[in-house]
């Protein structure tokens, strides 16, 4: 077994255990009636529980990996005189210091984080509106036209103006029927793709395990 071999092996074994446990555990009905099936279902649930718990904590800890990476990258940049990295690092340090000193005080959150984040989210509006104005530039075909038409209809349909009642009715129908169908198909497609890719990963056939 080469160097990649161990991880593929682990992936395969753990994957098999996880999928069986998550999929089949916790439902005695699946194994017929009787005391034995209860016991079986309970036992099947156990490894999934353990793995889930383990991975949940690992994922929570992965924030540390992210932070280390962030600091690594920006200290490196700072060393090359990047002013903005200094801002970032200072902001990081101040926040940590603040939360350590004022336990449980959320005013920094309200004063800095919330306004910047909301303002960025608010900035999406002009970006989206002006971007929407240029759809026909990027896609000068019938699909672009359709896209723009639907955007306009839904926007108009959201307006509380009495004169637009027919548009509202049409927009409601649009949302309930064709949009519903299209979104459902996209979702189904994604679920299908995720399921197939997931199964492939469970089979240990992913590059991520090696190297």
């Amino acid at each position: 077994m080469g160097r990649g071999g161990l991880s593929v092996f682990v992936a395969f074994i753990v994957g098999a255990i996880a999928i069986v446990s998550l999929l089949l555990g916790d439902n005695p009905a699946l194994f017929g009636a009787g005391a034995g099936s209860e016991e079986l279902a309970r036992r099947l649930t156990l490894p999934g529980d353990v793995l889930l718990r383990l991975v949940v904590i690992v994922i929570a800890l992965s924030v540390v990996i992210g932070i280390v990476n962030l600091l690594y990258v920006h200290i490196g940049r700072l060393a090359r005189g990047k002013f903005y990295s200094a801002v970032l690092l200072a902001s990081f340090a101040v926040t940590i210091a603040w939360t350590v000193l004022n336990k449980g005080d959320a005013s920094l959150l309200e004063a800095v984080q919330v306004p910047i984040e909301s303002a960025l989210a608010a900035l999406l509006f002009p970006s989206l509106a002006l971007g929407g104005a240029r759809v026909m530039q990027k896609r000068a075909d019938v699909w672009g036209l359709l896209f723009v038409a639907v955007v306009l209809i839904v926007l108009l349909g959201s307006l509380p103006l009495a004169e637009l009642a027919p548009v509202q009715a049409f927009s409601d129908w649009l949302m309930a029927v064709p949009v519903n169908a299209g979104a459902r198909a996209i979702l189904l497609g994604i679920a299908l793709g995720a399921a197939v890719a997931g199964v492939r990963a469970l089979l240990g056939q992913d590059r991520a395990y090696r190297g």
Partner: protein
Amino acid sequence: MPLARCAGAGAKQISSDAAGMMAEHTIALVSFILTLMVFSYVLGDLPLIGVLYRVAVYIFVGMAAAFTLVVSYEGLILPYLQDIQNTETSWTALGNSADIYIFFTALLFGLLLLLKPVRSLAWLTNSVYAVVIVVGAAVAVVGALSGTLFPLLHHTVSIPANLVADFGALLDALIIFVGVMTALFYFHYQVRATGAAGGGQSRLARGFRHAGKVFIVTALGAIYASTLLTSLTILSERISFLFQFGVA
């Protein structure tokens, strides 16, 4: 069962008004300035003004990272530490002592992931990462199947009761069905090779794909419009804040 009336827990939540007021004014002022700094993005790369946006963004990134760290520690690691010390409870059917093993295994795993870039440890770190990936993949597969694929398909093929009475509903159900199927067909990847020039599809297949694309693009357009409305709502809140601050 009452929510635990722990002795004194949280009892000093009542804010002291005098100090709170000062703080509120400062908070409002700081948020006012930061909001304007972010809005300077609109002006683009004008000298000096371009800096404001990026300074605000970098402050934000640093702070968000710090908050994520703090909240993860306080909101998760601390509670877990608390929880594993409680011998009466356990996370799994294995009892409390297993909790401790799980917790410290997870800590070890986290540490190993941190060492992923170290080449000489790759065999170990990759295996650890593989565990994370496959458990995630298993959850995703189970979730995608039981939460999206089956229910949505089930609902797509189940037509509302009493169809004869309501022709409109029947029509809608049929349109949805046709829409879902053609749009799903749209994604089809494999095409027949029809010679050196390229691949082709039968007229029927191409027709289906065009019909499917109508539904897909319609859905995307509607979602785009909805996203626009959400951002507009948030913008209105921000502007309302700016005005309120301006008045006060």
